[in-house]
């Protein structure tokens, strides 16, 4: 399996931290050759326009490095708020949880990779 990066955001981010996350993730994709990135935001209680833009940026940036990004675990209240705010996260794949996000990544990346059934948190 092309390695997937799993990132779990555990704290509420302010802008500088979100920007650091963007840079770190793009560097990690380059360094590891990961074909997919899972960003778990289940512990994030708010996503504002800046954070939404960062998620979109990460998806676009990793895509040009040949890796797909899936945002997983968004809380319902966050989804409602994002849409009312006017952000639809177009261009960002989303999935309900890590498991479904993994499945989505595997279909996106296609059959050129050898798929191995493995734990979600395992990245090599």
């Amino acid at each position: 399996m092309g390695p997937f990066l799993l990132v779990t955001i555990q704290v509420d981010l302010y802008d500088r931290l979100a920007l650091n996350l963007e840079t770190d993730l793009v560097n990690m994709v380059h360094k590891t050759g990961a074909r997919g990135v899972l960003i778990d935001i289940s512990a994030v209680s708010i996503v504002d326009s800046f954070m939404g833009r960062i998620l979109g940026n990460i998806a676009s940036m990793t895509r040009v490095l040949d890796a797909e990004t899936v945002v997983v675990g968004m809380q319902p209240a966050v989804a409602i708020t994002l849409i009312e705010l006017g952000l639809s996260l177009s261009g960002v794949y989303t999935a309900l949880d890590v498991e479904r996000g993994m499945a989505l990544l595997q279909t996106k990346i296609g059959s050129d990779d050898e798929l191995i059934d493995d734990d979600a948190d395992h990245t090599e």
Partner: protein
Amino acid sequence: MLITLSKDSIAITREQDVVPLRNRVKEVAVKIGMGLVNQTKLITAASELVRNMLRYAGTGNVLIEVVSRGRDTGVRLTFSDKGPGIADINLAMQDGYSTGKSLGLGLPGTKRLVNEFSIQSVVGQGTTVTILKWKNG
């Protein structure tokens, strides 16, 4: 008539200050029994307004009040800064408009998230934005 039941104020001087502000607003919202979706909308709105304040004015102050009108209880937040002010408020309230590098969702998006929204601005003197979210709004 709007009655203020409690008030508290937080100074915003740097980006990190948004974190304690969000926590304080959440505390107050939970205390009056506001539901999770409304809490999230209010905190997201506060986050947008703090970003505007930091970007355009550098620093400012946020007043957090628990208010009631009749049988309704809510949280009112007042964001005051002494920044450059907004020359054309109608333009600033349009979706997609921004003089900065943002998506331009800040003000119009914030307005959609709350029940009451008002903005006063004097060029060269500063901007005050007031938002109110009712507990069941």
